[in-house]
């Protein structure tokens, strides 16, 4: 009995330790963003509760940069990326999983190899390409390279491949063509994976920094992550502003995840539950 309680206590202690490790830094940022200008930020040990809590830092962020304008740009980019990824990755994934065509294996391999290419190594080539297309310094150019992520295509392919073949065979006998099978049968069965793809696409587009920085030159078009970087002062730092900016940037992701988490966990386990 005592052993069992002890074991349980130990388990919870470990969980708490991991929790502190993962969300500790974020909590520190959150508390810094509420600290007034009269208190020390860097104390050791760190103090989590602000002595003079204030919302001033958040209004100051909006004074320094057009934060709503940048957030709108980010939202446009992120939503466009969600739509293109959902449409593109599900169609490509379905084709790879269900359709028979010449070069299917090569196509599969191409998507796998694409996973291995780091953005940093191709960023200049991508930029030159956007310039040739005449769309550098537009939000379209921000979305385009990530419009259909290869990881998402592979995720969708695996989800479709895990569906029982028999259902589709029955549909073929009933006279359904590929489009009808895709839209009416396959898509509704992989909702969980679609949610995963949506979250990945949104997060990827929302958090990206290097690519939008390189491709955009006019600060009117900047996305939130790039725009918030202006808070790092050239001559002096105000960590409270940076912290407030970080919180503004992260909040939509937390909300999105909270809304979609039901689907998310179903999607992560989707491949496994099918018999």
């Amino acid at each position, binding site marked *: 009995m005592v052993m069992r309680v002890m074991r349980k206590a130990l388990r919870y202690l470990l969980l708490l330790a991991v929790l502190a490790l993962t969300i500790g830094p974020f909590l520190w940022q959150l508390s810094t963003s509420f600290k007034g*200008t*009269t*208190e*020390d*930020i*860097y*104390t*050791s040990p760190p103090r989590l509760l602000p002595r003079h809590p204030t919302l001033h830092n958040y209004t100051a962020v909006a004074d*320094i*940069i057009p934060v709503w304008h940048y957030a709108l740009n980010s939202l446009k980019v992120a939503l466009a990326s969600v739509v293109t990824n959902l449409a593109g990755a599900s169609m490509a994934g379905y084709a790879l999983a269900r359709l028979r065509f010449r070069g299917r294996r090569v196509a599969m391999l191409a998507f796998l190899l694409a996973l291995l290419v780091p953005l*940093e*190594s191709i*960023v*200049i*080539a991508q*930029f*030159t390409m956007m*310039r040739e297309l005449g769309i*550098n310094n537009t939000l379209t150019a921000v979305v385009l390279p990530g419009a259909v992520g290869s990881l998402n295509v592979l995720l969708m392919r695996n989800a479709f491949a895990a569906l029982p073949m028999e259902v589709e065979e029955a549909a073929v006998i009933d006279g359904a063509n590929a489009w009808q099978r895709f839209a009416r049968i396959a898509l509704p069965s992989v909702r969980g994976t679609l949610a995963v793809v949506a979250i990945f696409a949104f997060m990827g587009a929302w*958090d*990206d*920094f*290097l690519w939008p*920085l*390189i491709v955009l*030159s*006019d*600060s009117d078009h*900047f996305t939130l992550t*790039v*725009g918030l*970087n*202006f*808070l*790092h*002062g*050239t*001559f*002096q*730092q*105000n*960590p409270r502003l940076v912290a407030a900016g970080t919180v503004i940037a992260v909040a939509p992701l937390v909300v999105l995840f909270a809304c979609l988490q039901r689907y998310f966990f179903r999607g992560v386990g989707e491949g496994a539950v099918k018999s």
Partner: protein
Amino acid sequence: MPLPRRATLLPAILLALTLTAACGSGGGDDGGGSAEGRATGGISFQTWNLRANFKEFFEGLIRDFRQRNPEVKVKWLDQPADNYADKLSADAAAGTLPDVVNVSPDLAYPLAKAGLLMNLDQEPAAARFKGEYTAESWQGNTLPGLRGCYAFPWYLNTGPLFYNKRLFKESGLDPQRPPRSYAELFTMADTMARRSGGKVATLGGIPSIEDFGRYGVPLMNADATAFTYNEAKGVELVARYQELYRSGGLDPQALTNTPDKVGQRFLEQKVAMNPGSAHDLANFRKNAPSLYRNLGITDAPNNNGKPNMYVMGLAVNAHSGHKAAAVAFAHFITDRGNQEAFAHRVAVFPSTKGSLEDPYWTKDDGTDEGRVRVASARMLKGAVNYTPVVMSDEMKTILRNEIAKALQGEKSPRQALDDAVERSNKLLKRG
């Protein structure tokens, strides 16, 4: 997502630059537009993270310029703080580098080497302004091995040594008598470590290349083709730091501390001294009010009478379509009146001749800001930018790692510096 540092992109950038340079020479024409003649046409002007705090100031400058040169249109771009080098190289590769670009000498070097920046010394329309700037700042923007100055000198910065009077008092040192030379600094660090039982460190970071320069170590040979900081004086500096590290005079986290982190340790009041810049004062007041009440300010020690300074410049794109306008604008932003106006707004220093003899920079007005300003302005006379422009981030990391090995006792100071120099020189030849 961890942001990639400058070093990761460098090979790709150099390759891309070589490619564009090759294409460019095939085209023959270098972009058109003569630097002589009347200033006309549309130009773009790029600053590095200045819009957030100085929007009105720069918009005002551009308006003034337009009034004098109605035929020029100026488009102002501002880039955020991080990854500026990446942004510049991408623009350089794609041929979209703005006409007037805010650069520091180390950022200018790869661009100038690829033939993308105008050599001001060899362009009569630009060289005629040379006399308006201090010799030190023109020299600071002159790139070794490339025969010329590649940017109009803009704002300068330097700073005093800040120290924590409370920590001085607690270890029985006189808070009114800060160290004046490196020898005194090291002796005090020893005392402080002994009296506090190793709890209070005097310095927070391992020596950087600027510290070697201030200590009087020759950093490179004359044509910047080989590093030389492994000579006797350099070895002596590392040996002193090794003693400090053992006695606790150097922060135990020093080996991994970045300059930002060192500043933070000073704010936490775990480290008693920190060489800083003139803007730090506002930072202390805002982020560590209790430290600010005990803040001491003194000249940064140096062994050769030449303090360190950082220089910023405005370079002109060598392929600009409107060179005359670009040169006129770059000169206008960096002329005496406008530089002084900018330096009144933020704690930086003008690089124009005679500016620092103005009472604003010579007469202490009794405030802490005034004291720091006057002390820093005094240091700028004869100051040099110690950081060699050819020293890449990778080479700085090599130096840092080798010094860390020496402090931990894995290598002798001499061996560590020899190794760092050898590896850096290899990189230098390859680049």
